[in-house]
């Protein structure tokens, strides 16, 4: 009798078969392999976490970015971010916040108490002399609050403190500092989040697609066709082209300075790009009258800047913050410099009554459903091989290569975190209750009934 164990191959891995006559042939694709691997996002980058007003004094919120559960707390005026997963048995501390003082938070399940500034386990409620105390802890995340937004540096557990870059390295280029390098004669210098007196107003909401699909939509110059029927375009009589074609080989400039953001600037509304305003064969013509010049750029970890949008002195920023491989938090933020209270009020009024309903909603809602329409093609990974790209796709391809080169890390698939196991019974129950998978941790509100 032969009792030797048979040697078996592992279950077959899908083979990559990409023909050489394609724009994104195998060689090009391998240049952006790291980007293709980044389904769960890029890690070791600054991401927006919450608007300041979402985290008042003593508040605790749990969120998830790039598969990393993060807890934010504001106590005694200080802001903290630590990993929202107890080292003991993985409970999310934010689900039922238990804070005995302003410098720590305890896990509400077995009382593991963590120092907010260092993450160190500094006590256990019912085991204060445990030998484990002081020997373990959770990762902490640097925070930066500015212009009404809270940013968190989402990092791997062993990313060194001294290597954390300033927030400015993960934000778009600033004006007028870069006006000479990236001139923009058609509009006044775009304000930036880090500018003095900058006010950021906007919203964030969860989109059901991979973050890359969302991000690539923002600076895709052929996607504006989806906006052709939007209310704001016709109410304002804007000339929004059917699409914008690259006209020269310097249509895109790489932003790669050593100590700064990494990304790409698209020279829209210069002779390097040609707006397409009619298609006679299909009987299409843009007949609106008012020029609406703008320019898009994108920097790591996926931050869009639309200068001069939706009007002069205002800039729109967008983030597509990965939550899991099929969820992202869509941030739409408008920034304006307001030096007086009156200007603030005016900006707030205009935001509430014009931008919010017609731009943040109306115009950008359209982007949200467009991205979701693309999601299924890419969800199982085959879309990256099967997409048939065209001239205007130099924008996403350049971005993919650049991101592959400069991203500080590729997030590993989330393990033991919310929405990582798509078929878990808890997720099913929440869905049955009509709650879509989201960004924030759902809190246990009533301790006596469930």
């Amino acid at each position: 009798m032969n009792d030797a164990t048979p040697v078996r191959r592992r279950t077959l891995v899908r083979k990559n078969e990409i023909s050489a006559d394609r724009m994104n042939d195998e060689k090009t694709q391998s240049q952006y392999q790291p980007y293709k691997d980044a389904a769960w996002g890029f890690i070791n980058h600054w991401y927006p976490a919450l608007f300041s007003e979402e985290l008042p004094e003593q508040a605790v919120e749990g969120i998830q970015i790039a598969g990393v559960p993060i807890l934010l707390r504001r106590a005694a005026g200080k802001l903290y971010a630590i990993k929202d997963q107890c080292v003991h048995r993985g409970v999310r501390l934010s689900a039922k916040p238990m804070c005995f003082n302003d410098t720590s938070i305890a896990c509400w399940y077995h009382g593991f108490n963590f120092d907010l500034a260092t993450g160190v386990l500094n006590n256990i409620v019912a085991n204060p002399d445990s030998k484990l105390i002081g020997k373990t802890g959770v990762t902490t995340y640097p925070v930066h609050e500015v212009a009404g937004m809270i940013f968190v540096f989402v990092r791997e557990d062993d990313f060194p403190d001294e290597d954390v870059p300033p927030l400015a390295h993960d934000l778009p280029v600033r004006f007028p500092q870069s006006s000479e390098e990236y001139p923009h004669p058609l509009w006044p210098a775009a304000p930036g989040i880090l500018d003095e007196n900058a006010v950021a107003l906007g919203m964030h909401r969860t989109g059901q697609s991979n973050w890359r699909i969302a991000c690539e939509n923002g600076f895709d110059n052929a996607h504006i066709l989806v906006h052709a029927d939007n209310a704001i375009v016709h109410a304002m009589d804007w000339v929004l082209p059917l699409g914008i074609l690259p006209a020269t080989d310097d249509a895109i400039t790489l932003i790669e300075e050593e100590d700064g953001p990494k990304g790409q600037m698209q020279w829209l509304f210069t002779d390097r790009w040609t707006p397409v305003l009619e298609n006679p064969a299909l009987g299409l013509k843009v007949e609106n009258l008012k020029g609406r010049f703008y320019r898009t750029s994108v920097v790591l970890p996926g931050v869009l800047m639309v200068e001069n949008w939706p009007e002069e002195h205002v800039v729109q920023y967008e983030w597509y913050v990965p939550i899991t491989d099929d969820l992202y938090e869509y941030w739409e933020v408008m920034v304006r410099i307001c030096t007086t209270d009156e200007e603030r009020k005016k900006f707030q009024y205009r935001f509430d009554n014009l931008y919010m309903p017609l731009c943040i909603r109306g115009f950008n809602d359209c982007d949200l459903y467009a991205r979701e329409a693309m999601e299924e093609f890419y969800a199982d990974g085959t879309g990256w091989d099967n997409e048939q790209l065209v001239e205007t796709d130099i924008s996403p391809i350049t971005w993919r290569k650049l991101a592959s080169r400069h991203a500080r890390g590729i997030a590993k698939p989330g393990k033991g975190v919310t929405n990582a196991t798509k078929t878990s019974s808890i997720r099913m129950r929440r869905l049955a209750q009509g709650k879509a998978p989201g960004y924030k941790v759902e809190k246990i509100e009533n301790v006596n009934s469930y």
Partner: protein
Amino acid sequence: MLTPTKTTIAFSDGIEHELTVEPGQSVLDAALAAQAPVLFQCGTGSCGSCLAHLDEGEAEHRAGSSSSLLPSEREQGYRLLCLTEARGACKFSVGYDSAAGAGRPIEGKCFVNAVERIATDVVRLELELAEGCWMDFRPGQFIQVKVPGTDAVRSYSMATTVADLPKIELLIRILPGGVMSDWLVNRAAVDDVVEVSGPYGQFFLKDKVRAPHVMIAGGTGLAPMLAMIDALRVAPGRKPKVLLSFGCQTPDGLFSLEPIELRQHWMPTLDARISVDRGEPADGIRVGNPVAAITAEDGLTTDSVAYLCGPPAMIEAARKHLEHLGLAPENIFAEQFVASN
């Protein structure tokens, strides 16, 4: 020498193991008996895995034994523990931490995924661990492959990292009349099964070094460098500067230029220099040896680390050259080709 001697082995993380070495016993055997986590593989003085530095006392290789230890290394105080006899109390240090030896070698089976001639005398062999086999290893380590249909065993550094598992890639030089070469050229086919064991060796990337890295590779000595570059690329934190100098004898002997170029695209801190000993200089290819391609202008500092892999003469020359450029001898790590027998 008739009485047992006390010997200490110090690991880079500060952990020390004390051993009693019996008369006639090698320090390696004593270390293994005492369960000290030292790295080793062949036990015969050829592979170089059990390299250690003699810090105190007197110890020499067994009289009459031949080994791959270079005379210059011996002079600097290096010994191969498998051949070393202690003459009185002594202390050795090793360049790896006490956890490195924890990944004990395993024996397993692999399927052949691809056999590809990538230069006149180099074959790329892609293996895939069979179901039920796994292996943990450090970037730069090697495995042994049993040549199918023979009893011959050969050692090759992996050009890939654990992140690529179950796939393992080897770069193998084709030698006329070689047992492995004969199998690769005449018989090897996709889906063949080969027996492997490993990982072995202490030539691997040292963790968390921020200083510049120099890598000098001759021929298929490129394999461990590719693995180390991939590991550096995905390590969290600021990437160190990496200078790879890769040389072959002739232009048609060059290989893996595209993977090197890709890694340069993915890692802006990687600089690569390609050399050939003979032939016409071409675009991006210089004529000369890979050692001389590194110069004082590269601004190497005493804390720079160097990894060398290639034939003994290249390693000897590279060591001298790098020490001359200011590198500390203890920061130069080498793996030399061992002739098959």
